[in-house]
């Protein structure tokens, strides 16, 4: 099969699931006639009609709640956040009703809803369009949080998310939509709760997700030349975190570097460090290193924006430090 862009892989996932299950539908801003801001729903409006690919008014909190109500009564909505940051306006619905309602209702209702869209720091999009909501939402009970990173995992994970009976927050990265690769010809589904080992190594475990996977791999290229053998794990599932895969790796390398795009304070890495200390403290040779974005609103200026997020050279340096015991 020809190489597929990540946005097209997502589109294929939605198309395939919509054709196999009539209860699957898409809703959000400009998902229909316009085909989605990043073309993830291109041509689906023509194929499935205006109810199954529903263009909504700009009312994030209400249309998210509407998707939840539709899910409670038997549909499987895919709610697109045109930019995931906009879903701050839907925080209440995502937290109280997507995340908690099943529990609060004593199991009366299930909420098979996927809330997906682009997140992360793009290219000079300014602070509001450069948010990493995964960190904000990780404390909400009842949510599954997934971050895809390649066309292959994007498709397999989105299909799994649509079939899952629980609310899934599905993060895409605005700078990865045009990544491309060959996809399997046959249908495939990937587990939502399993990390992906990107590179096997024995020296140090690099834990990362979403776009930072590529920064980590860029650093690895340089590190390989210097004779290092890092293991790179793409978390994929940000909630729950796959501690089986992480633990197996730590037992081999005894060193951990976390590379994330979310902010340092209250970030995904903060949670992972705490849990590594709980579970694998005795396996560690030293403290876990955490490379995160700066705790600031993402600036517009290119130079300042680059300083805000983690760059490959910093990862390289951190790995060298931890390997040389200079910590």
């Amino acid at each position, binding site marked *: 099969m020809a190489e597929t862009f990540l946005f097209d892989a997502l589109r294929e996932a939605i198309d395939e699931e919509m054709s196999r299950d009539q209860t699957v539908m898409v809703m959000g801003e400009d998902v229909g006639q316009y085909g989605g801001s990043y073309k993830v729903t291109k041509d689906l409006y023509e194929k499935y009609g205006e109810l199954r690919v529903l263009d909504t008014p700009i009312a994030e909190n*209400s249309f998210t*709640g509407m998707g939840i*109500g539709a899910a409670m009564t038997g549909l499987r909505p895919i709610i697109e956040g045109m930019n995931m940051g906009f879903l701050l306006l839907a925080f*209440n619905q995502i937290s109280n009703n997507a995340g908690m309602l099943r529990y*609060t*209702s*004593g199991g009366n209702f299930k909420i098979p809803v996927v809330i997906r869209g682009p997140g992360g720091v793009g290219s000079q999009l300014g602070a509001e369009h450069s948010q990493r909501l995964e960190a904000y939402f990780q404390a909400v009970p*009842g949510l599954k949080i997934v971050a895809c990173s390649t066309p292959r995992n994007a498709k397999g994970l989105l299909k799994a998310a649509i079939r*899952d009976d629980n609310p899934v927050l599905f993060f895409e990265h605005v700078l990865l939509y045009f990544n491309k690769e060959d996809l399997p010809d046959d249908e495939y589904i990937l587990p939502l709760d399993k990390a992906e080992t990107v590179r096997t190594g024995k020296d140090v475990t690099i834990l990362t997700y979403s776009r930072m996977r590529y920064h980590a791999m860029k650093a690895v290229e340089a590190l390989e030349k210097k004779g290092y053998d890092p293991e790179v794990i793409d978390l994929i599932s940000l909630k729950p975190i796959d501690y089986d895969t992480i633990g197996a790796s730590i037992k081999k390398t005894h060193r951990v570097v976390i590379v994330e795009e979310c902010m340092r304070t209250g970030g995904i890495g903060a949670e992972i460090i705490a849990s590594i200390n709980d579970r694998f403290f005795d396996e560690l040779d030293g403290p876990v290193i955490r490379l995160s974005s700066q705790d600031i609103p993402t600036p517009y200026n290119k130079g300042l924006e680059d300083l805000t997020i983690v760059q490959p050279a910093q990862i390289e340096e951190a790995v060298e430090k931890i390997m040389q015991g200079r910590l």
Partner: protein
Amino acid sequence: MVQERPLPTFQATSPQVTKEEGLVVYEDMVLGRYFEDKCAELYQRGKVKGFVHLYNGQEAVASGVIKAMRSDDYVCSTYRDHVHSLSAGVPAREVMAELFGKETGCSKGRGGSMHMFSKEHNVLGGFAFIGEGIPVALGAAFQTRYRKEAMGDAGADQVTAAFFGDGTTNNGQFFECLNMAALWKLPIIFVVENNMWAIGMAHERASSQTEIYKKASVFGMPGYEVDGMDVLAVRAATKKAVERARAGEGPTLLECLTYRYRGHSVADPDELRDPAEKKFWRDRDPIKRFEAYLLEQDLASETDLKSIRDKITDVVEDCLTFAEESPDPHPAELYKYIFAED
């Protein structure tokens, strides 16, 4: 302060209900009243905890709306949700057990007073934050239209009633959902229970336009001002709205003018409301009024009504015993119901 806005008049020239229907509605109203009286007592005695918002005075709205709907229609409530749930058919035992936090409660003791749910009876909740239930109700209504048109299910003609108060009508979700409901002609009824007070905030101090029913016209949907102390007026307005919704013609807004006899919650000292205002509304008690109607129209005798009241007294006693004797949720099931597979 005494109500300045006149109550709309409703001229009942002929019986609006059959005897059978009338007695069903009456029983439902009495159940709502007696159940809440018992809740107040139990809270005072420390048996029921948390925030408890009682419905006394507003019975004509729940009974008038829900008893004019079908059992497969959807009901979406607020934190003042005991009586909506009862009217929708959730057994009093399950509602009371929920207040006791018991495993036999309709939300398995995980929800409490403000979070009554019943999939079996299409009660979508029990929403404790202002306005957040309206989008959920809208979703149920959308689902009905979707099932009918996108899935070809000719039998999908359920109507959803979304209940909320006057305070909610200043929240964005109210306006956003009115817009979408009208835009897509969804089978939903927005039932505003205007009891004039959002805790301690008087409606006219919070709303630039106090006549809420007028807000419907902006979205091109019918809005009616209804005497919310008259169950027949509420019922008649609901029937019209239900008919419109089932026919695929879209939403209706009903502003039911009503009053809560008690404070916002059982913890509310209720110091702001004028005794004269309370008396004005208590004099229009919906249950007494409907009793008088049933008797005048020869739809029921004093004996009929008394036997219903006695029956409900027993139902409430029985549900209390049931709740008290029910088991607490098992500690080992603390994590149950987080995910669909649990």
